[in-house]
Every structure is written in C-alpha cells, then in structure tokens.
C-alpha cells in the first residue's frame, strides 16, 4: 500500500516536473529569461548610473578629509556660491576640539585654448598648509606641484578639450598664465571639471579679495566626538551652515534625488521592472494556456492545486534566478565598458544582492495570472 507523500517531497516532485517542462520549451524559456535580463539590466544600469552621478557630486566632500564643513547659510550642494566671513577661520580654530581649520576657495574660472576659445573650470583654491580639499586621484605629477608659483593641476579627461594639455603646458586661466603641474582622474562633477591651485593663486585668478573664504574645512582633535564639535561651532557661528562630512554627503544625495535625479532615474528603473513583469507574466500565462491539457491531465491523475502551484512557482523562481545571474553579469560587463573619467557606473554589493530578490518578487507576482488560470482549471476538461 502506498503511503501519503510528505508535502515537501511532493512539492519537490512537482518542482522537478515544472523545471523540466520549462526547459523543454526552449524558445519560451529564452524569451522569458530575456525579459528578466532586460529588467535587471535596465534597472541596475539606471541605478548604477545614478549612483555614479551622485558620487560625482559627493566625491569632493568624501575626499576632502574634513570632519566638519563650515559653509555659507543655505548651502545644499558643494559648488561655488556665497562666501563665509574671513573671521570664520579664527573662530573655528579657537573652538575647543578643533584640530585644524582650513580655508577653501571655490569659483568658476575659464581656461583659454591655443585656438582662442575658452572652456570652463571649477577652480579650487587649496590651503597647502593642511591640504584639506586638495587634489586627489593624481595620475600625473604630484599635488605638491601647486606649491610652485602659477602652477595648477587639471583633469586628465579634459586634456584634449583644453587644447591638448601636457605637463608643463602653459595656459591662460582667467587672465593668468599658469603651468600645468599635474593631472587628476575623474574629478568632474555635474559642472566643469575641478582644477586646483594654491589658495592665494586661486584668489588672484578669481579677482577675489586676499581673505576670501568659500568654505572652512575642519578636522577634530583625536578622540573628540565630531557632533560635539559641530554643536560648539554652531553655538559660536549660528548664521553659518555647520555640518559633519557624512551629513553633508547625505544632504547632497538627498537634494539631488529630490530635485534632479530621483524622478528621472526612478521612472526609468520602474519602467524596466514593469516591462520585465509584463513579459514574464505574459510568458508564464501563455505557457499555461498552451499546456492547458497537460495541466488538466495532471489534475485528473491526482495533482492538487497546491501541487500545480509548486510547479508554476518553481518555474518563476528559475526565471528569476537565471535572469538575475545573466542580467548582473551583463551589467557588470557594461559597467566596466562604460567606466570613464566622466561617468562611472556604480553597482554596490547591496544592489547586486538586492537585484535577485527584487526579480524573485517580480517573477512571483508575474506567476499570479498563470496560477489563477491553473487553479480554475477543471480536471474534467481532459475528457472533452
């Protein structure tokens, strides 16, 4: 006498049948997986580009080595704008817990090309006594080059754009002749690329007062909590924006997502997922319709709705897993192919982990229509 098969084993049997049926119909399998791959690539690619753009706008804050930023009131992004009073530096330096307080100048400049045209740059004046906010990602020369009179460091990706820049090239920047002392890689925010000069040289080029300060970058004494120093600075300079480095990073990301990037990238990512959902749902539903007699036969010989649910869900999970793996492989390859100084597609580990989960949910949702049809199926149809 046969015994009742435990539900888990019974589900395994049906899953095996489901996977076998799925693999037999190769054209449909490839088409459905392509739908999942499409969704993965579009969604992950769009998110990757968005993360890349966000990184372009937070990289200065992330790389400036400052624990605390003192910025003009109302500052939301790191960009040229208002200034802070020159006295801010002394106020900061005399605040308990402050280790270093260093001025930074940021302004819009122009570089004159040999053919007479001009290109914009984001001129950064760095305090070379601390190097807070100094050049990084150097690919040629050294940051100390800007210690030399009238010497600047430019972005290597703009060398051609600036008329074929090389080390020791001479260019006119905002009316001042400068030498090229080095190149950075990838320091291009939304606006023109960063170009670094010693802070007083930068003030000269910008035609600014000798005490102009756009930001003050602060480091705290070892062992002193940053938030404590932030509070102290706020108490002394209530009219200025005083924010820790990580909080400034978060504020920039939030601002960009709310006002610029969030909607467009959110929409394109959602479209990718919706299209994937529709493709998988239609494919699974048509698979059930095309194999209605087989499903009816399975019911007639004794399969329950639960059995057939296991069969269909096994297929949807397989579509999600295979589609995610192929999709993520393609995204990784595409990200490597696209990577340049201007655009880096960032696919963080959590995104790579999240994609299969999202696809799994998507494919399970896509199976609802197919499951509804299977569960409604009358086994008696096999006798008609």
């Amino acid at each position, binding site marked *: 006498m*046969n015994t009742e098969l435990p539900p888990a084993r019974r589900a395994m049997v049906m899953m095996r049948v489901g996977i*076998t049926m799925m*693999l037999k119909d190769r054209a449909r399998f490839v088409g459905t997986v392509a739908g999942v791959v499409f969704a993965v690539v579009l969604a992950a690619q769009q998110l990757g580009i968005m993360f890349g753009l966000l990184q372009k706008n937070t990289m200065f804050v992330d790389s400036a080595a400052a624990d605390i930023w003192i910025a003009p009131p109302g500052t939301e992004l790191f960009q040229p704008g208002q200034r802070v009073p020159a006295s801010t530096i002394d106020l900061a330096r005399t605040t308990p817990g402050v280790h270093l307080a260093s001025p930074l100048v940021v302004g819009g400049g122009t570089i004159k090309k040999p053919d007479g045209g001009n290109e914009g740059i984001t001129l950064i004046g760095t305090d070379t006594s601390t190097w807070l906010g100094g050049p990084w990602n150097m690919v040629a020369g050294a940051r100390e080059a800007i210690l030399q009179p009238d010497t600047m460091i430019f972005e290597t990706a703009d060398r051609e754009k600036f008329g074929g820049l090389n080390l020791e090239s001479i260019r006119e920047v905002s009316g001042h002749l400068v030498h090229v002392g080095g190149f950075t890689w990838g320091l291009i925010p939304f606006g023109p690329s960063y170009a670094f000069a010693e802070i007083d040289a930068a003030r000269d080029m910008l035609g600014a007062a000798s005490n102009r300060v756009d930001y003050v970058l602060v480091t705290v004494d070892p062992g002193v909590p940053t938030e404590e120093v932030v509070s102290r600075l706020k108490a002394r300079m209530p009219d200025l924006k005083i924010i820790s480095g990580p909080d400034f990073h978060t504020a920039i990301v939030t601002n960009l997502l709310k006002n610029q990037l969030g909607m467009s990238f959110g929409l394109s990512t959602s479209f990718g997922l919706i299209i994937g959902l529709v493709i998988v749902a239609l494919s699974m539903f048509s698979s059930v319709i095309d194999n209605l*007699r087989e499903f009816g036969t399975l019911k007639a*010989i004794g399969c329950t709705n639960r059995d057939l649910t296991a069969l269909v869900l096994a297929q949807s999970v397989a579509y999600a897993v295979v589609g995610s793996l192929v999709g993520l492989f393609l995204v990784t390859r595409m990200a490597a192919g696209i990577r340049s100084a201007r655009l880096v597609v960032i696919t963080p580990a959590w995104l790579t982990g999240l994609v299969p989960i999202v696809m799994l949910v998507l494919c399970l949702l896509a199976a609802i229509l197919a499951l509804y049809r299977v569960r409604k199926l*009358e086994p008696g149809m096999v*006798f*008609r």
Partner: protein
Amino acid sequence: MTLEPMTGEAPAVTVRSLTKIFGGGATAYTALAGVDMDVRAREFLMLVGPSGSGKTTLLSILGCVLSATAGSAVVLGRDVTTMRPDELPAFRLQKIGFIFQGHNLIAALKSRDNVALVQELRGVPHAQALKDADEMLAAVGLAGKEHSLPGDLSGGQKQRVAIARALVGAPPIVLADEPTAALDAHSGHAVIELLKALTQERGTTVICVTHDPRIFSFADRIVNIEDGLIRPDDGSHS
C-alpha cells in the same frame, strides 16, 4: 436496464439514479437522466453509445472529475458524489488509472518519467518509482523506450505509455475514454488487446468508453447509453 444480479463479491462500481444537468433555466441540458449501473470487480466493461449520449459524462463522474446533480455513484465503496472536493484528488491518485482519448502525456517528460510521476505522487521513492515505470513500460512492449520523449514515439506507442501510466501501481479501477479513437485499426486493436491482457492479469476493473465497434469483442460486457439513460442490451454488440 442492463443491471444484472451480482453474485458474492461487492461490485466495484454501483451507480443509482445518477443525474447530471449542465446549466440552468431554459438552456439546461440533461446529460444523465437517472442512470443505474453496476460494474463487477475485475470486469472489462465497455460503455457505448452515440455522441452526446452521456457516456463521457458518466465516466467523468466515476473518475471524480465532475460533480453529479443527483443520485449516487459508489466507487470501491465510497460514494464519490458526496466526497469533499479536497478528498477527490487523493482518491483519483490512489484508486483510479486514467487513459484518455489523446495520450495526454506530459510532452517534456520521458516515457519513464511520465509513468513514474504517478507513483512518486503516491509516495513511492523516486528510484523505486522509476523501477516500477521501467517494468510497466516493458510490460506494454516499450522496453528500450524508457528515455524517449512522447514526441519521438508513434501514436500507438504513446497510447501504450498512457496505458503504463494508468496501470502502474495497480490501481483497482481503470477508466478509459475512447482509447483507440486516435489510432489506426491495427494500433487500436493492439492497444486494446494489451489493455485487456494486462488488466485481466492484474484483476483490474476497466470501464472503457468507446464507439469503436472493432474493439467490442474485447468487452466482458457492453452497456449501451443513449440520451442519458442506460438502454436494455438489444444484442447488437454481442
């Protein structure tokens, strides 16, 4: 009426006043109008009649894939018309083997997997189920075709696999719906001969719906159904 006195052993199937009405109101259609029928254990019974006579409806109710409107149908001691819907799949799985007009095999599964699936669902371990399937396929003359997909088999061979699927695990009853309809005369004859031999050997009760007169000679008894009622045997099928 073709009711015959049953002797000794309880009948495998007892049908009383079985009625099935499809739809309602003006469009109601009576497929079975109060059928009475007994089928003896180990009997090879053929249910014959013209299209629309109700024979497939009767088979569907006996196979627990269609509900009755009224009356009773006791199969192996259980009145299938009063069973809860959630009891029916297990009853079908354990007690009834099905042979359909088309072979109704799962196209993606090999012959042995089609047959073994029923056994696995019954709780037979995978390896044993495959062994049972291979033995059953050998019994229907398909040794060597265990790994063939249905698409690679002829119509007759597919129906043999379907017979193997219906008989594996020795269910007490086999219900066959026009098992030779899709086959040529030679294949049809061979298939029904095989079904008869195997079920006789195993003591299986068979109810076979057909209107193929070429296979009437294999029946132990023929029951004629017309307009939803069992008709007295006029001897035309003898």
